[in-house]
């Protein structure tokens, strides 16, 4: 595997579904962050076959749990002084607004652009979010 140096202080977003790293990069606005960021795409994974990883050096002021909405299977490794101090799955929020968009062409949001795209967590185990308007499940 490609070798990227360890972090001293920051976060490793691991087990991102292969191809999903850029979506998370954009959500976190990482292009605006003045610190080291490594994006590893299609890394080998015993569990997933292929996965993406993002390593961020330095503090970021974002609710990392929101990342679970974009990919419910990713994991977060919080790192301080070069050691993993916490390794966890994101705690999925009950409701999210403006992070994901309803793709149902029959949904009212498809014709009324100003409506906020809001989703409710309906299945915690499977990480299923449903649009509050049309109730269609969000497909990652």
């Amino acid at each position, binding site marked *: 595997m490609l070798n990227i140096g360890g972090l001293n202080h920051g976060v490793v977003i691991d087990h991102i579904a292969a191809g999903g790293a850029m979506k998370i990069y954009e959500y976190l606005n990482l292009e605006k962050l003045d610190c080291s960021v490594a994006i590893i795409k299609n890394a080998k994974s015993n569990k997933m076959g292929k996965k993406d990883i993002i390593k961020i050096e330095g503090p970021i002021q974002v609710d990392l749990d929101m990342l679970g909405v974009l990919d419910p299977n990713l994991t977060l490794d919080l790192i301080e002084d070069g050691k993993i101090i916490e390794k966890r799955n994101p705690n999925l929020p009950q409701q999210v607004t403006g992070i994901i968009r309803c793709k149902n062409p*029959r*949904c*009212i949001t498809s014709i*009324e652009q*100003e409506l906020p795209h809001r989703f409710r967590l*309906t299945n915690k185990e499977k990480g299923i979010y449903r649009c509050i*308007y*049309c*109730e269609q499940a969000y497909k990652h």
Partner: protein
Amino acid sequence: MKHIISPLDLSTEELAGVLELAEKIMREPEKYSDCCRGKKLATLFYEPSTRTRLSFEAAMLNLGGSVLGFSSADSSSASKGESVADTIRVVSGYADICAIRHPKEGAPYVAATYSNIPIINAGDGGHNHPTQTLTDLLTMKHLKGRLDHLTIGFCGDLKFGRTVHSLINAMVRYPGSRFFLISPEELKIPTYLREEVLDAHHVPYEEVRILEEIMPELDILYMTRVQRERFFNEEDYIRLKDSFILDTVKMQYARPDMLVLHPLPRVNEISVEVDSDPRAVYFKQAHFGVYVRMALILTLLELN
């Protein structure tokens, strides 16, 4: 203030109250003929619907109230690009209660979010149609005397049929419900309904292809249309459609007290010769729709 956007917006207790009131109205309609004097129902129909709109209007007129509204998007400010939110904020000042039908799913939810008056969803695309479900429940309750321990066969298009999905959602809340799902492979119920509703509530159900085999088991047969446009090719449609047509021959397998329901409009899935069978109650069911809407209007206006 309460809105009815989904059939599940009423608890089983609240539902029992609405159905009981509907039955009281059926017994003594004159007693309720003046209850809504001075009240106005706005019917915002962004797509045409004959039965639902007339049924709502009849319900309000029977209660002594009046009705205003539009019956297609072309004749409303939607054609000028006005949002549902803005329309309902204006209409809230003109009427006391509102029934809204819209081709887009979730439009009534948006209306409810911005409304100062109770909103009733009169159908939003393929999503919800709660007053149809209430009509179905009143029909079963009134003619069978109960909503628990019923074996219901759903026949036809179970994939896209919103009336079927809503009724299944409503019936899993009653003890002893059991379902037979009779449909072509292409039109089986969606996976989410199987996993999140039927399996989650541990409701026994069986998916079958041949209607005659399970007819003797049924308390209720809920028929729906198998629409030609749902099939990929004409050949499949012609091959399958007859299996899901109810005729007098198939009715011979049914129990004497089984009831046939249909949300209407019927096309060819119930042969007209079945209409004269006393177990065919679909026209009665359509009439019950007015009573249940009367009961719902009274309940939401807190005049019950």
